[in-house]
């Protein structure tokens, strides 16, 4: 039980000011920790937390994913009250649409699991689907599951909410402050050097998204993950034509229409992981092809912009959560691919786990060393292309 002697006076340095870094810092401060400091190499909302598709769902196909994300979904609904800020979470519903027999079986079988986890989840009939998503072409659709509690959290509102709430509780948050060194004292981190300043640390939380591997390397430890570019695009605004958020697992595509009227989404293509924010043509063309097939009315809309964000991909696409096995006082919350969906709840769980020095049971399946133990947490319902892991994972 390292560090507990210092209790709430422990100096905590959170590396990464995205939604998980800010959220974990907020919850740590809320639990009474008096010295919480967040440093980030980039600018506010500059990372994946400001570039994502903003979709939130609680229901997946595996119990591990669903338990964690269902908890987080509930926390999203309450988050404005928790933070005292309007995070704009809209419970507009989330449709998982199956076009293959395999996906149909998978999502329909998951409905009882969703309900066990307290989610409103049901298989909807074609007429209901037509009513919920009149712009969708349904000829290839075999089945759809509606998650009523799912929806959309525009990242700018959530990020501002967490930032303001964290600062109100005394958390110091600084952007443009890159970590250049991590000083160690035996198997512990003694200090983090960021922006030329030495920050003594009793505990470090690594929440640096795609940069986490490089930051972990400064501490001499490895993460079983690699940076990967994900791209998305926004169509020009039109009056509301699509209410629910939609995932098309068979096409690795997701989309929604934002409160700005833009249709925002993207599809995955199988490519070698790219470590850059520069975009490429295949994702734009593939996404457009899927829209043209599945949402024929969108075919005449113009594409406003196309951008990329970077996430940290893990072999099972699940996050890396909990203490790092090789350093006593390093906690990790990174490797997120459904980072917005998981943020409202997991930040709370990670903070609680740190306070109790024991990973909460919902995050335990996502332990940092699970791949080395041969225990990945795969989920068949996620909208991400399987990739060959570039680094060999034992």
């Amino acid at each position, binding site marked *: 039980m390292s560090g507990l002697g210092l209790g709430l006076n422990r100096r905590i340095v959170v590396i990464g000011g995205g939604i998980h870094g800010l959220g974990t810092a907020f919850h740590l401060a809320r639990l009474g920790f008096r010295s919480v400091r967040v440093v980030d*190499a*980039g*600018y*506010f*909302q*500059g990372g994946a937390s400001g570039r994502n598709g903003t979709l939130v769902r609680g229901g997946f196909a595996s119990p591990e994913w669903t338990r964690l994300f269902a908890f987080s979904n509930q926390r999203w*609904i*309450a*988050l*404005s*009250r928790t933070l005292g*800020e*309007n*995070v*704009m*979470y809209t*419970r507009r519903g989330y449709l998982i649409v199956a076009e293959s027999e395999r996906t149909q079986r998978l999502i329909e079988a998951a409905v009882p699991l969703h309900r066990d986890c307290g989610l409103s989840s049901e298989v909807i009939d074609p007429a209901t689907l037509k009513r919920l998503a*009149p712009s969708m072409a349904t000829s290839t659709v075999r089945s759809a599951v509606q998650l009523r509690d799912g929806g959309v959290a*525009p990242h*700018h*509102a959530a990020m*501002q909410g967490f930032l303001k709430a964290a600062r109100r509780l005394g958390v110091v948050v600084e952007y443009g402050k890159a970590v250049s060194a991590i000083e160690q004292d035996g198997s512990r981190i003694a200090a983090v050097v960021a922006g030329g300043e030495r920050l003594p640390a009793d505990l470090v939380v690594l929440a640096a998204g*795609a940069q986490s591997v490089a930051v972990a390397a400064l501490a001499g430890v490895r993460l079983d993950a690699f940076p990967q570019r994900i791209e998305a695009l926004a169509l*020009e*605004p*039109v*009056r*509301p034509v*699509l209410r629910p958020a939609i995932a098309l697992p068979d096409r690795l595509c997701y989309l929604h229409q934002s*409160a*700005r*009227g833009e249709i925002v989404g993207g599809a995955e*293509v199988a490519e*070698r992981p790219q*470590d*850059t*924010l*520069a*975009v*490429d*043509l295949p994702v*734009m*063309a*593939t*996404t*457009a*092809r899927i829209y*043209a097939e599945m949402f*024929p*009315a*969108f*075919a*005449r*809309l*113009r*594409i*406003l*912009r*196309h*951008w990329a964000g970077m996430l940290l991909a893990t072999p099972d696409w699940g996050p890396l959560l909990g203490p790092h096995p090789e350093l006593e006082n390093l906690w990790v919350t990174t490797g997120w691919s459904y980072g917005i969906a998981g943020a409202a709840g997991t930040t709370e769980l990670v903070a609680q786990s740190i306070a109790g020095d024991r990973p909460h049971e919902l995050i335990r399946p996502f332990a940092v060393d699970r791949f080395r133990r041969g225990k990945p947490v795969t989920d068949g319902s996620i909208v991400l292309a399987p990739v060959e892991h570039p680094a060999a994972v034992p």
Partner: protein
Amino acid sequence: MIAFTWNGRRLQAQEGDSAADALRRNGVRVLAATRKRHRPLGWSGSFVQGVLAEVDGVPNVRLDQVPLRPGLALRRQNAWPSPGFDLLKAFRWLPARWVQGGFEHPRWLASGTGRFERWERLLGFLAGEGRLSPAAPALPVVPGARRRVDALVVGAGPAGRAEAAALEAAGKTVLVVTRGPKAVEGVETLTRHEAFGVYRGGRLVAAAPLDPSQGALVIETAELVLATGRRSCPPVVPGNDLPGAMDAPTALHLAERGIDLGRVVVVGTGAEAAVGAALARAGRVVATAPVASLRAILGRHAVRAVALDRRIACEALVHAGPWIGDPGLAFQAAADGRLRLTAGSLPPGVRVVGGAAAPDEPVHVGDLAAARRAAVCPCMDVMGGEILDLAAAGMTHVEELKRQTGCGMGPCQGLPCWEMLRALLAKATGSAVDDRPSHRPPRRSLTVAQAAGLAELVEPQQ
């Protein structure tokens, strides 16, 4: 004469007119409105929002790129319940600060309540502007094409023509892409096409025809020459987005079409006298002056006067400078980064030539008190005051300002708004702002149907 309709009203115009020409010929100056406050916008050559309308039932069509056809039905969008009886115009009376960045998530309408869900639906309706029927007939995918050339020249102005001719003479296969109607003599030219994105360090360029029924292209090239010229940046003074304020190329085009501009004041950075002389046949040029002497453009629904050292009544304010380049394609060729895209030096094989290579002229910013009422990004209703207040509160990172205000996130996608933002910020902070947000393709240059036609033409990187 060709008959068409505007909001159901029958009008006539001439053969060869664009829809925007035709409306202007009929004295229609207000074509659109800003996103939130519904302030009037017209054809400016600077702000795309001012020429977006519904054309034959298709939303968000650029009127200046639509050739007039008999029976064309043009309709103003972002009006409710109808353009003739538009209650949304009432938003014009909202104080600017009520719709500044963050207005959409006030604490008193917090999420997790039914009240918020209704508010959010209302936001989506108001922000949506164009109408798209969910049951609109399917539009077939427009097949694209892939080309391979030794050299691609973007732009067919003097510099582009010279470059293209020299490359052709050197025995290379050359392709020119230009928005304009004129081909370069002796060189294969895609006219009325827009090169909208540069990928893979300049090796791949994507272009789309202005006509959405034609396919887009991916061009693989060893050499890329950007001869995209310069454009005149609107001044950062009150009234800079009023219908009747326009850049010199737009005014000259209207003059060439024989369309009356009324009384005209021309401001500029040296070209104002020449532009004034060229415009004399289209209107009465009542004054020419350096842009630096412009204090405000006056009018409620359209330009009625300008304030120089004195007030001059006019119907058009034409700006001929400051001249700035379009940084988009060069940025995309050079940009890389993990935390943020930043442009280093251009990759080998990519060159910027002609006016586009000349240093930008400083954007005119009026005195700061007045600049508070200037539009920085009219489409998104970002006014100078909002930027100045955020800068005073310590927010000076251009990417953060973009995310906070929405500046540059409308149909222009940052040009000219970010240039105006930078100039205003520099004046407010007293130090140069050598930075702008990432220029992201494709800047509404192609439809989903056209982009879908590019699928399978480019292999993902393996």
